[in-house]
């Protein structure tokens, strides 16, 4: 049976955000413990081993693999420049001479007597890891990275695309039910994060790219528009590496859905503030949700109690969002929680609850189909 309770996404004015920043491979940490860093600062660096190119020198020279070494002008471990001669034949008549030049610069990794293959490794590529949020370095993970912490306002989205970005928040619409169109995106939004309402139109994507917007935060997106934006059909909700020109954070889901009032109000309150956003989403094991982090350095971290978000059940009076058709996205208050499993119109027997929707209408829905709107 599905879970009877879906934990809601965090929307809060004050919390401690702690981000572990890890290099993919061992490297060097560049900052000291306790220092204040900005999101753009490089906190650690590593060198990724260079790419490997293969050249089958035996085939190219028309010799036996076991003879390749005889014709090599370089040995294993030696550096080579792009275009430099790697191997050559030494015929009596120089017209018949054949030469192999290195397609890339790097070092000779190996020469195989069995396959006649030469592997060339390109120089290592530096990889710089940024702090991602303005905050303080509270932990050093030698060789791996750091932990950066800051008091913040935080909005977790349900789905996003693209990696990380920072910029000032611009509220481009009047209300949470307004659709974000191309017209809403203005030249002054360049390098910023634009907040829309219930939906983002495809036209707004083009405009955002033209202007140079770093991020868009919005209630809903149409799946067809997402496909158009990505250029392919997104099959599995594991994202974060897309490059569409900006980062997208969707707070409610697919289709036109008003951004939750609290979320919109919170983002509006911080208009003009610097925010860090990430579109990375992973729904399967080790859930990652997209996020909007608005650092609030004016707060004293000690004043913020770190509440353990307990997965306690839903209670009568709680505000919930319906998360399944046909009432997807509607918000209401729980009015009844019958303990016994009930048969619903599909004939499934499941635990249900009664919700009074905004406007007074009461509906009975499976508990699996609501999520608590929490802070």
């Amino acid at each position, binding site marked *: 049976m599905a879970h009877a309770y*879906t934990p809601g996404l965090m929307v809060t004015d004050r919390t401690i955000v702690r981000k572990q920043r890890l290099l993919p491979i061992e490297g060097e940490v560049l900052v000291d413990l306790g220092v204040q860093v900005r999101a753009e600062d490089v906190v650690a660096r590593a060198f990724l081993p260079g790419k*490997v190119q293969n050249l089958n020198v035996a085939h190219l020279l028309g010799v036996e693999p076991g003879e390749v070494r005889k014709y090599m002008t370089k040995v294993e471990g030696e550096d080579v420049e792009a275009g430099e001669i790697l191997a050559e034949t030494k015929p009596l008549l120089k017209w018949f001479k054949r030469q192999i030049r290195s397609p890339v610069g790097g070092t000779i990794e190996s020469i195989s007597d069995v396959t006649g293959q030469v592997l060339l490794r390109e120089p290592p590529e530096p990889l710089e890891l940024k702090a991602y949020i303005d905050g303080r370095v509270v932990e050093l993970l030698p060789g791996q990275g750091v932990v950066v912490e800051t008091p913040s306002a935080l909005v977790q989205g349900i789905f996003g695309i693209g990696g990380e970005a920072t910029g000032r928040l611009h509220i481009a619409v009047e209300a949470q039910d307004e659709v974000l169109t191309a017209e809403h995106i203005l030249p002054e939004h360049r390098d910023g994060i634009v907040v829309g309402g219930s939906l983002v139109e495809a036209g707004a994507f083009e405009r955002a790219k033209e202007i140079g917007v770093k991020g868009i935060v919005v209630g809903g997106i149409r799946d*067809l528009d997402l496909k158009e934006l990505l250029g392919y059909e997104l099959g599995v909700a594991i994202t974060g590496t897309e490059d569409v020109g900006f980062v997208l954070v969707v707070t409610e889901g*697919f289709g036109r859905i008003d951004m939750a009032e609290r979320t919109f109000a919170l983002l509006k309150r911080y208009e003009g503030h610097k925010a860090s956003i990430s579109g990375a989403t992973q729904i399967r094991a080790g859930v990652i949700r997209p996020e909007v982090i608005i650092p609030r350095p004016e707060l004293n971290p000690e004043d913020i109690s770190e509440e353990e978000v307990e997965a306690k059940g839903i209670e009568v009076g709680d505000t919930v969002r319906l998360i399944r058709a046909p009432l997807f996205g509607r918000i209401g208050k729980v009015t009844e929680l019958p303990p016994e499993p009930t048969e619903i119109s599909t004939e499934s027997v499941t635990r249900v609850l009664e919700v009074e929707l905004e406007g007074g209408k009461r509906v009975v829905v499976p508990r*699996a189909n609501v999520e608590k709107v929490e802070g």
Partner: protein
Amino acid sequence: MGDLKAILVTDCGSTTTKAILIEKRPEGYRQTFRGEAPTTVEAPFEDVTRGVLNAIHEVEELSGRKILDGERIMTPARSDEGVDLYLSTSSAGGGLQMLVAGVVLRMTAESAQRCALGAGAIVMDVLASNDGRPGYEKIDRIRKLRPDMILLSGGTDGGTISHVVELAEYLAAARPRPRLGGDKIPLIYAGNKDAREQIRRILSEHFALHITENIRPVLERENLGPARSLIHELFLQHVMAQAPGYSELMEWVGADIMPTPAAVGYMMETAARREGLNLLGVDIGGATTDVFSVFGGAFNRTVSANLGMSYSVSNVLAEAGLEKVLRWVPFRVDEEELRDRVKNKTIRPTTIPQTLEDLKIEHALAREALRLAFAQHRQLAVGLRGVHRERSISDVFRQEEVESLIDMMTCDMIIGSGGVLSHAPRRSQAMMLLMDAYEPLGFTRLAVDSIFMMPHLGVLAKVDEDAASQVFWKDCMVYLGTCIAPLGHGKRGRRCLRFRVGDLEGEVTFGDIKVVPLGYGQEADVEVFPERDFDLGAGKGKSVRAKVRGGVVGVVFDCRGRPLMLPEDEDERRKLLRKWAKQMDLYPDSREEGNFGTRFGR
């Protein structure tokens, strides 16, 4: 193994740990109680044994049997205390993820893939000398993957070694890192034995190298056993040992922990062997769909990693295409609306259909997920390619078509498991999904796994085959009934066959389904007389007589034609879907006067 009176088995899944108690009763072994608890491999617990103990606690509470003494499983059993044997399977932490490589994509690489899948692995990629990717691309791909284990094969014994050595060189250059940490990735070499020295020289520095017998010593023979056993051994030594709490769990069990899918496969293989059956099984989950088959004694397993009903449901739509999904929906659906609904299910995977319309859409998606996973299975469950050919290079690289081992006419039984099948509000829905996706031919018994206990029974079968088989047939299977479907096509409305089921006689016209009730545990002598264009296994127009077993749905004559074809015209197609729904009594809005009701077994 001595006389086992009480057996406890757990399956540590990625989200839930399920414990079952099996007890010896006068009528034989029965599954008696079941408990479950969230799996505790990930933070904050990071110890799989917590979830195991919680699940066992639930069994204790429900059964009243004391099993634990503190945090120790009491063995052996004494009257109403303790158990004689404790076993476990595991797929927590993402299961076993493998990269496989072989020289020729459709030969040794395919054998390597079959070997890894059969051992319960998820195959992340299949590398081959002729896979069309240039060397640097292969190396780049290996670098990006973080497998738990690698299986390298290639070449027949005594054949050329240069291709497999080349693959080894790519692997060495890429130096992938293990997914769960640890020093070196275990790498199994099961290729041309003449290349072993070279392989050792190239790979032993960067990998935990293990060498075993060639999986394809000659083209005519596949030898998957030794490599498969080694995969299991290394899974326990390297992968499990890295997962939190497993070293302790390994001390508790009375036999090796098995990867969950390997245990399911073993149970199916055992059941098929003991009963002399050809079996097809499917487990459709939220993220993946596993298909198992045993035909003529040959066992095959495939995993469709991105076909599932929640996390991967939008990929079902992407892979099948909108048209293929909508062909099963008996009403008009707006494309934009459907796409958004499907994506919303992906991002909120625990929701359930709450309207009949939504349920029908979910069933349409399930049919396509099942169909696609089955198509992938058919491609891999084939005879050996390259057999009886000269072993010259040109022939070795030839990719001739080889017939699939799956012959639906000889398939005796289809077993479905996974929420959408096992928990369908009506059992007739599960039967219809299996019929639409697999198109059984001739006489085929259909069943669903009641509470997904096949993993438990698979690991038990390794220790006590009789006990596992008894529970499998009595408690694990929920029999839906028997589908009788002739091969061929005719004119709609014309007679397709006549039948006699016990004392009941009747006929079915082409394009129709007829359900004849035959209850759970009942058997009947059935004789079917197909018309001259139709074949039930004995040849066109030839009658067939068989003893048929009933189930919660009954005997279903499926005369819709094979292969099943749906009309192009939308209105006609929807009308037909509604007719079939009525004939099968699929949904509360599809009851038909005069047909037999099938609302049993809830």
